[in-house]
């Protein structure tokens, strides 16, 4: 038994459910649009088709883990080209620098999946339980059959959305129509069901219940982003020099000189999806979704005061405005050396990757010399080396490739499917579509050939002639 005097100290603030009020305005509409765009991209992308001929899948975006291929529209990436993905990640990182230094936590406010799904779930709340006040009442109401039924209904909808979220994710990793069929007939891989189960659970919990706590307590992004913002970044700001001291409309009518523009109507708090009070200044809980701007502008319009008591403004401009200068248009904050440098770097990486993608060869060769034994003395005294050649055909059609020996004087080669008497300077090998063929070849050189480096040169035979080379070693007596 705990003694009654025991002091309860918790290190955590008790969670207060956020019941955000409906609001309309330009930023809310922008949020709607972003939600539509991001969700459409997420759900529709795997179903887009892209014809790649008979030898490759026709799904526009496909991460084929089993065959280690990544398809994105006209681009096909092999595992050894993973640097393209790394490049994309770097671009995403620099893009985040760019956006954050220009418009603060815009990613958090509009396009982060946590934000989008939280928003979606909050709309479900509104749809089932009514707006803010109704939800607060229902929350406080004792549990009874009606409340249980309502909650069950809402949580079922939560679960359905969560399931669709997890279900859409796996579509990126296999042919979507086939996988859908397999999934419902119980023939999909166990990992598909496990993935859907995990993502359903996380979506259900993170989107349905934890919501803004993920942003405030779990996510490192806000902390990284607050380090990347500076006094020239646009952010949602309450103009306290204009609003304070706040007082109700009634008091302000009586003494217009004593009070600022803020009438303390609490609309900015009521609409906030993370439940903060922006008037306390910039804070980690603010995802800068700007819904408070919409709410405040509406109130200001109703009471006939100028809009923008809460607005996107840089810290620098805020200081300037506080000192009495004229407000500067927000777009002017976007153009400055830092954002231009970020944009240049971002664009340069993008262009470099596009260039690399456009000019990369779809033919490749690598040679692994046998190390045991490194060379073989034949009965006529000539020296034979064995190599395992890997011929890469990145086109989605079978190709014939001509592999030739470069440099090695009087050298000849044959494959393990040929006879030595057919040895020649070059052999022709068929490579299946979109794959790497492994072939064993023998290279023979006359007696007395010195150990030396030489090259295998591969030319793809048909269509676009491509050339690839690899240098390797010809071992001979005296090499070891």
């Amino acid at each position, binding site marked *: 038994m705990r*003694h009654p*005097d*025991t002091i309860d100290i918790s290190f955590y603030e008790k969670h207060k459910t956020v019941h955000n009020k409906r609001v309309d305005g330009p930023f809310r509409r922008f949020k709607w649009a972003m939600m539509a765009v991001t969700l459409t991209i997420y759900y529709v992308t795997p179903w887009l088709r892209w014809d790649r001929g008979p030898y490759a899948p026709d799904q526009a975006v496909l991460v084929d883990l089993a065959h280690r291929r990544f398809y994105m529209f006209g681009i096909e990436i092999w595992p050894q080209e993973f640097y393209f993905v790394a490049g994309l990640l770097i671009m995403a990182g620099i893009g985040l620098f760019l956006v954050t230094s220009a418009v603060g936590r815009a990613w958090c406010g509009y396009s982060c999946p946590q934000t989008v799904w939280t928003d979606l779930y909050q709309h479900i709340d509104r749809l089932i339980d009514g707006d803010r006040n109704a939800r607060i009442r229902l929350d406080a109401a004792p549990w009874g059959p009606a409340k249980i039924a309502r909650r069950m209904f809402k949580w079922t909808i939560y679960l359905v959305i969560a399931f669709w979220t997890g279900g859409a994710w796996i579509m990126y990793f296999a042919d979507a129509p086939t996988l859908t069929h397999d999934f419902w007939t119980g023939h999909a891989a166990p990992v598909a069901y496990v993935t859907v189960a995990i993502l359903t659970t996380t979506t259900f919990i993170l989107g349905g219940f934890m919501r803004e706590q993920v942003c405030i307590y779990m996510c490192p992004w806000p902390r990284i982003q607050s380090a990347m913002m500076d006094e020239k970044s646009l952010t949602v700001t309450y103009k306290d020099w204009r609003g304070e001291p706040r007082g109700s409309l009634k008091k302000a009518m009586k003494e217009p000189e004593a009070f600022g523009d803020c009438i303390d109507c609490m609309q900015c708090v009521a609409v906030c999806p993370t439940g903060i009070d922006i008037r306390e200044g910039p804070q980690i809980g603010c995802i800068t979704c700007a819904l408070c701007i919409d709410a405040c502008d509406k109130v200001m319009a109703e009471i006939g005061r100028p809009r923008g008591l809460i607005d996107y403004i840089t810290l620098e401009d805020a200081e300037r405005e506080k000192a009495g200068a004229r407000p500067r248009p927000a777009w002017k904050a976007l153009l400055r050396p830092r954002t231009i440098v970020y944009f240049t770097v971002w664009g340069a990486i993008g262009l470099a990757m596009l260039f690399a993608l456009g000019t990369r060869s779809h033919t490749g060769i690598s040679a692994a010399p*046998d190390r*045991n034994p490194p060379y073989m003395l034949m*009965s*006529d005294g000539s020296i*034979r080396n064995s190599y395992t050649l890997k011929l890469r055909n990145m086109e989605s059609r079978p190709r014939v490739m001509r592999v030739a020996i470069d440099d090695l004087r009087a050298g000849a080669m044959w494959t393990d499917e040929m006879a030595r008497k057919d040895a020649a300077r070059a052999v022709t090998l068929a490579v299946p579509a979109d794959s790497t063929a492994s072939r064993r070849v023998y290279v023979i050189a006359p007696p007395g050939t010195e150990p030396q480096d030489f090259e295998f040169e591969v030319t793809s035979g048909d269509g676009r002639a491509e050339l690839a080379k690899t240098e390797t070693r010809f071992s001979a007596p005296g090499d070891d």
Partner: protein
Amino acid sequence: MANRRIDQPTGTETVGHEWDGIEELDTPMPRWWLWTFYASIVFALGYVALYPAWPMIHRGSEGALGWTSRADLARETSEQKAEMAPMLNAIAGVPIEHLADNQARMQAAVAGGRAAFKVNCVQCHGSGAAGSQTLGYPNLNDDDWLWGGDLATIQTTITHGARDPSDGQTRQSQMPAFGRDGILTAEQIGEVADHVLSLSGKARDNAGGAQLFEQNCAVCHGPAGKGTRAVGAPDLSDAIWLYGGTRQDVIAQVTNPRMGTMPAWGRRLDPVTIKMLAAYVHSLGGGEDFVEAAPAAQADAAP
């Protein structure tokens, strides 16, 4: 217990002892921990009953399920065997001359042979099958064969071994010890060695050596020293020397010959494994086509 009391600030009972005014709280175990502990006990009882657990004098208790890791292994091994059976049967069912007719079958045979080689053959022939000149184990990668290098001949050599007294059909031959048994004098042996080396252009020929070779060696090695595979007599005119190609090496071999032996693997390995080993050795780069064997194989297939 002495002096147990409720500690006022925490509301927890003390253990009842006091050391220089310091008391210890008898804080109970957390509930979740206790339940986990009880659950572990229940699990352990079930486990001991169902699985081998108690060490006895000769072996452990058996457990109600009768599970053993050996049985698991046996099951997995037999599953693996069952999976490989069709291909092994296919390899077993085809004469070795026709093994290469089917690309997939030949590849499977080479792969199986490679695995068997790593277990049975590498001890002498080396993991790269390059043999050892110092120890006198032949290199299997080159195109020089003592007993023949086509698939069927390799298979026969592996099955019956070389100079294995326990196998009646083993590869058998013996080179006389010309020096040790006093057939030739040291001087004559030197002359013969020069002649032998001259066959591959490594020394100047001499009439005495040529005559001695004609009289003593040509019966096995052939008049031109090209060797005779029927008796495993090596080709002396090529660049490959099993026991070394210097004058000293040749003199040593003529004086007191070394002759390699290989166990007859037919007694130890099943015919399919041997067939796969032959395919692997043949695939190393020096394998020969059937020259004499081909018509015979056709004759077999005709009726």
